[in-house]
């Protein structure tokens, strides 16, 4: 068993030679491409992450911009609506005022017209009444005055006329 703990120096030499050879060859054939690929991937991941972060920042900026724009738009719409409401109110008042004025004017005109019409009507009525009463009086008079009365009346008239105008000799009396 002492062979177990008696180092064989030749094997030590083989080991060192083998190991140095492996280090030299493997660092060129294996570890270099491996680490190269890994670094490339790490760089790619880093780049991707940066790109993603930039994109996110841009998106956030865009979102903020849009929100600001939306708020501005809302405010504008609000102000426009208010303005429109005020204008409409004014317009309405104006229209009502005008309508009221027009109505008043119409009423005024109508009143005047009515007055004129009424005056005319009353005048016409008066004429008509006068005419009618005249006619009625004529009829009544025609009926009431008989021949005798007529003669008497005529004679009295004549006498009166004679008195007034003595030159006129009528011959009677």
């Amino acid at each position, binding site marked *: 068993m002492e062979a*177990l703990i008696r*180092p*064989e120096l030749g094997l030590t030499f083989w080991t060192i030679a083998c*190991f*140095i050879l492996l*280090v030299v060859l*493997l*660092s060129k054939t294996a570890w270099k491409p*491996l680490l190269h690929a890994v670094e490339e991937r790490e760089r790619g991941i880093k780049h991707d992450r940066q790109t993603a972060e930039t994109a996110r920042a841009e998106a956030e900026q865009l979102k903020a911009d849009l929100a600001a724009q939306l708020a501005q738009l809302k405010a504008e719409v609000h102000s426009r609506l208010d303005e429109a409401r005020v204008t409409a109110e004014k317009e309405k008042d104006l229209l009502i005022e005008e309508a009221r004025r027009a109505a008043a004017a119409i009423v005024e005109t109508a009143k005047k017209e009515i007055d004129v019409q009424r005056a005319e009507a009353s005048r016409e009525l008066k004429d008509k009444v006068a005419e009618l009463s005249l006619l009625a009086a004529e009829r009544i008079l025609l009926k009431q005055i008989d021949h005798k009365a007529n003669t008497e009346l005529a004679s009295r008239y004549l006498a009166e006329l004679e008195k007034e105008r003595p030159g006129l000799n009528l011959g009677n009396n």
Partner: protein
Amino acid sequence: MDLKAILEHHVVDQIWARIPVGPVSLPLSKHLLMMGIVSLILLVLFPVIIRSRSAALAPLRSMIEIVVLFLRDEVVVPNMGHKGAAFTGYFATLFFFILLMNLIGLVPYGATATGNLAVTAGLALTTFFLVNFSGIKNQGFFGYFAHLVPKGVPWWLYPLMFPIELMGLLIKTFALCIRLFANMIAGHIVILVFICFIFIFGAFGTAFGLLVAPISVGLVLFTLLLELLVAFLQAYIFVTLTAIFTGAAMHPH
């Protein structure tokens, strides 16, 4: 039944041949074969898995990637700073080299190369070199050794502290070596002992052996799962300690 022979057969390296190079002879052994298989897997399969774009290999690619990224983000950078990220490849190689050598010992006919002192010593030496090399490179030769003793130590303790810290460098390396070796070998020995229990109790009587067998097998399975955990854990610990030592050598404060 020779328990010693069985243990040696399963745990100790088997040297098949030796190549004499100058004063030393380089062995060709089972553990070297395992190390070669692991190296082949790392050299051929890993680049293929990593470079392929096929969906079938995607899970394997993700697994490797997760481990490498974990090492980079949790082990290398926290201990060595962002300058240390360049060492990710080194630490990934170290981790997978140790991990696969640990795991190949759990495969039938496989052997645990990290359960060999010579191998763990080699790995610990690479860490030792890395620690000192990066320390000297970052702080300069004299700066590095001047900063070996931590700040706040009274000046009259320096003659004592400096040799201790110098020894500490070696002890850390030695501890790395022993820790990995002992952890990898212990599980195997325990498994072998549990299996040998069946035959030991079987020697008292067949019925006795049959009674012990299910318990032993259950315990062996449990130990095997524990070894699976330890394989990952020890690879992680080795790498983390290397990162901590190197980071401490690079940044003394």
